């Protein structure tokens, strides 16, 4: 019996955060476009569904900025797939994006729970 996937709200991701997620995914090894989108979905517990309309432009843009590089490989079923890989510059970029994201989320958390307000955190 086919599992019906329920329609979930697609959370719109800012361009910057999409880049971050893609770079992060690639840190665990080279991957093709479909694989990246599946990985993000899985790792976020099925919450974040990446719109392919955003993913592919993002991948090509990242490649142009030389944070990732790509190659054509032959997959197990003898088909060609384009596989993306993080570059050294990409690794640096990932680190800086992560720290920026962490700073941002910390700031937002603080803003939502100002000092002196008791109650649940």
């Amino acid at each position, binding site marked *: 019996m*086919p599992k019906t996937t329920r329609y979930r709200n697609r959370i719109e991701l800012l361009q910057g955060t999409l880049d971050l997620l893609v770079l992060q995914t690639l840190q665990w090894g080279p991957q*093709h*476009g*479909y*694989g990246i989108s599946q990985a993000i979905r899985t790792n976020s517990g099925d919450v974040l569904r990446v719109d392919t309309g955003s993913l*592919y*432009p993002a991948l090509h843009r990242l490649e*142009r900025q030389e944070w990732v590089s790509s190659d054509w490989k032959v997959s197990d079923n003898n*088909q060609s*797939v384009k596989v993306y890989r993080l570059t050294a510059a990409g690794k640096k970029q990932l680190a800086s994006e992560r720290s920026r994201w962490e700073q941002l989320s910390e700031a937002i958390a603080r803003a939502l729970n100002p000092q002196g307000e008791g109650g649940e955190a």
Partner: protein
Amino acid sequence: MRLLGRRRRDEELDEEIRAHLRMAVRDRVERGETPEQAEAAARREFGNVTLVKEVTREMWGRAWLRQFAQDLRYGLRMMRREMKFASVAVLTLALGIGACTAIFSVVDAVLLRPLPYPEAEKLVSLREVDAKGRQITFAEPNFLDVRARSRTLAATAEYNAGLTTVLGGSEPVRTSVALISADFFKVLGVEPATGRSFLPEEAKAGGRPVAVVSHGYWQRLLGGRNDLAASPLRIGETSYTVVGVMPRGFNFPRDAEIWVPVELTPSSPSRTSHGKRVIARLRGEVTLEQARADLSAIGRQLRQENGADVDLVDVAALPLKDALVGEVGKSLLVILAAVGFLLLVACTNVANLLLAQVTARQHEFAVRTALGATRWRLARQFVAENLTLSLLAGGLGVMLSFWGVDALVGLNQSGLPRSDEIGVNARTLALTFALSTLVAVALGLLPLLRLRKGDLQEGLKESARRQSAGAASRRLRSLLVMTQVALTTVLLVGAGLLIKSFVKVLEIDPGFRTESAVAMEISLTDEQPQRRADFYRQALERVASLPGVEATGGVNGLPMTDGGTNGQFLIDDNPSLKGYGEFRVASPGYFDAMGMRLVRGRLYDQSDGPNTPQVALISESLARQYWPNEDPLGKGIQYGNMDGDSHLLRVVGVVGDVREFGLEASARPTVYVHYLQRPGQAWDFAIVARTRGDTRTLIPAMRGAVRTLNGDVPINFRTLGQVFSSSLDNRRFSLVIFGGFACAALLLAALGIYGVTSYAVTQRTQEIGIRIALGALARDVLRMVIGQGMKSVLLGIAIGLGGALALTRLIEHLLFGVSATDPWTLTAVTVLLASVGLLACYLPARRATKVDPMLALRHE
């Protein structure tokens, strides 16, 4: 970054997305969906593949350029499909752009470009100003004083040029030889390219005669040899050693080929013997105002020191470029404005054509908008399409302009200053390109102005294919027609005024009869005046004996040429009774040959000769000016100023005035002396022969007659008719051009009116069919169509007349004998345009009356 070709990248992207979909389908199938379900679901989840591809491609950068190239290609395809529209549009635009480029080439070379000398803005031309405020050429002693005393001029030089026979090259030629003072080349800032200019010991009285030649002369007549000293030149009795060659293209004074020091030729010490042109270079940071003040002070000094011995009261300085360009500048600017009008008319025609195209393509635009194109994107596409059109038109226009520039220069060779510098070059090509682009953008945006969202949605409906999309489009079309007609009206009024001026000028009596006479201009270099006079006497006798010759005579300067001199004379040898007039040396038969009137007294006859008392004939205006209430016969004139002979001339006759300087200038007071009595000033001599027969057969006969006397002397033939006609060259030039533009604009406007009315008829075919079916007669249909068409035409004429009344003031300086608001011209233009408009409306209206109601009702 992989640098692959575009196509490879597109293919790879396709492959990448296919792979994605493949894997997505495989996963779904693994999860239990059927292949078909999986396929559909995967595609749905992916989204719009085309859109994704499009957006991804934009990440590659340079998308803007790629789209533009795509639009250009599309534009070319469109043009191939709509050949008729495209060719009409391209030709119309090419006409406008070509005319603009040609005129701008001329204006650029003559008015805008600085003279081709270093720091040319520092160059000035100096003139003496007499008591009447007229600017005249310098007398040498005055020039020398100005040179010595000025504090604001770095270098000053005088020059004078004339056609002379030059021997010593590979053959004798008659060419322009310039006598220049020592600093001439220093003023201009140009030095000989080969050899040198004059040394100080050469540029003085008694110095060794040397000459500098032009590049052209050096090539043509000296064989381009490096050993310049080996071929001395002979001018007159003197042998000049060539010491230098000017750079190629150096052309000052105009057409001069040989430059010799003026100091070698003794000049009159009189401060009233004019004829020297003076140029100077301002010193350092001196402004023109400072120089003018300085020069005026010197002028006043000279006046004080010399009193009545000098004509000048002031010295004027004007920028050399202005002095060279003269009056022509103003007419050129007017012509530039006129061609701008023509271009606008051409553009409005094309705009109308494009508007029709846009309406036909409404459906296409609606679909593109639905697919996500913004108005901005559509505008870019339009501009690209029109760019192909205008670039083609621009290219064709450039070709037209080459031909046009040649035609323009040919039309007025002598009248256009700096004509050797005129040509289509990089600047004008850049202008053409800019014009084309501007036209493309303007025409591209125009239809877009009226493309609103509502229209686009309407466009999606099938029926919209044939509709004219409403009143907005119709209004725009009428507006365009009105503009065209208004612009054409202004051009036609201008042309009409110029035509009328030309006619008025032709009505002026030149003072001599221009038909059936030939003028033969001879130039002798014999230093001895008596020998020259003798030669001319023999030549006159021979010509007189030719068959068919009714009368023959000679003069040293024909009217309407630049010959002859002028200067001051004394009445009855009284130093306090001064006069100023033109001085001519003439032979007895001259006045009959020219067909001039004798007013009083007698002409020269056989009794006058070298040994009889000197006699003079004066012109009517001179008699009126100096002896208004007495009989001038018997009075004396002392004209020693001109040739050193201070014998008193007795006035024996008064002849009719002749327009020495063209029809439009008033006649100057003239004194004619007998060529055998006072041959001093007769270097060049023009023998005029009036014939009963054909002037063409006379010319070889005259040439033969002179050749038997002297085989080498250069002679130049013109009919009196040609002399007369060439004095009108400037005016004819403006008229032909303006008239040409006006006619072109009229044609374009007529085509425009026809096109719009024809289109309107097509759009309203259904309506017309219904009206006819309901009983409308032919004349009702005619009235309807013509009425609608003529509305814009008449409004356009009205606006145009208003514009003409305002603008024709600007061409007043070109008019003669006619006011800028001449009512006859305005009426004539109105009638002409209205009739042309009526005809242009009538033809489609006639077609409308033939509409078959049954066909029309089925017509969609």
